[in-house]
């Protein structure tokens, strides 16, 4: 949908993922879309260099998010949210509705 604007499909997916979930790490993003981690990492690095994303370490994992201090953050967020709302229901469910709320350790998962 926005891949031509963002340069490629992976960049579009990374941005939609971060707009949707708020944050993410390379392996998780790659697994969501069945992409290779190196391809995702390359786009994350490119977007971070441009100031569009920021990252920080959480334990041994590098977490990425849209940079709320980037001058065009609000406009980008609005564009991505509009794009998310326009996705087919099936795609939304498959890639953008993974469980994020807490669940006690050891409690079985029924619906995920």
């Amino acid at each position, binding site marked *: 949908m926005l891949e031509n604007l963002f340069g490629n499909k992976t960049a579009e997916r990374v941005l939609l993922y971060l707009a949707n979930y708020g944050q993410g790490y390379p392996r998780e993003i790659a697994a969501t879309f069945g992409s290779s981690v190196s391809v995702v990492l390359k786009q994350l690095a490119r977007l971070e*260099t*441009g*100031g569009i994303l920021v990252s920080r370490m959480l334990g041994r994992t590098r977490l990425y998010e849209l940079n*709320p*201090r980037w*001058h065009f953050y*609000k406009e980008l967020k609005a564009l991505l949210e509009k794009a998310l709302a326009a996705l087919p229901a099936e795609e939304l469910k498959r890639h953008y509705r993974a469980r994020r709320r807490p669940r006690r350790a050891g409690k079985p998962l029924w619906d995920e």
Partner: protein
Amino acid sequence: MGRITASTTIEELAAIVSTTLEAAGIIAVLSGGAVVSIYTNNEYESRDLDFISSASTSRIAAAIAELGFKREGRMFSHPSTPLFVEFPTGPLAIGDELIRETEVGEKRTAAGTIRLLTPTQCVMDRLAAYFHWNDRQSLDQAVMVALSQGVSLAKLDAWARREGMTEKLRKFKQELANRKRPK
């Protein structure tokens, strides 16, 4: 090249880089932690100099190569100093507020003039990090700058209102008042 040594301070280095860039027709504004270091006389010690410029990285690299800087990805390092120089992507902005090159401050030093965020802009820059990431270190730095330089609270009020962060600005004012109170 001999101008930069192991004992070159962050302020001296900022001035040397600024004047070299300006001589090459490149305007660059110092922002980030280095400005905090300069305004607080190194009470907060930064090792990175972040300059925002609209010039291309290759043009910048060519200009500061004469000082002995080598490009390492986005960073520039120098064999004689542990300090790094970086040129993050612009534009120069604090939250929604775009800052023009003509609206920043200037500091004259023996090594040359530095174009840098004003103390109030520097406090906004630090507070923006506190607002978005709850970064206490940034809040402390904002307080340090406000204490050492004096800032426009009216401008901070108006800016925080526009950013929808008046509650968090209150915390900054509280910290500032606590630090000002004699112990």
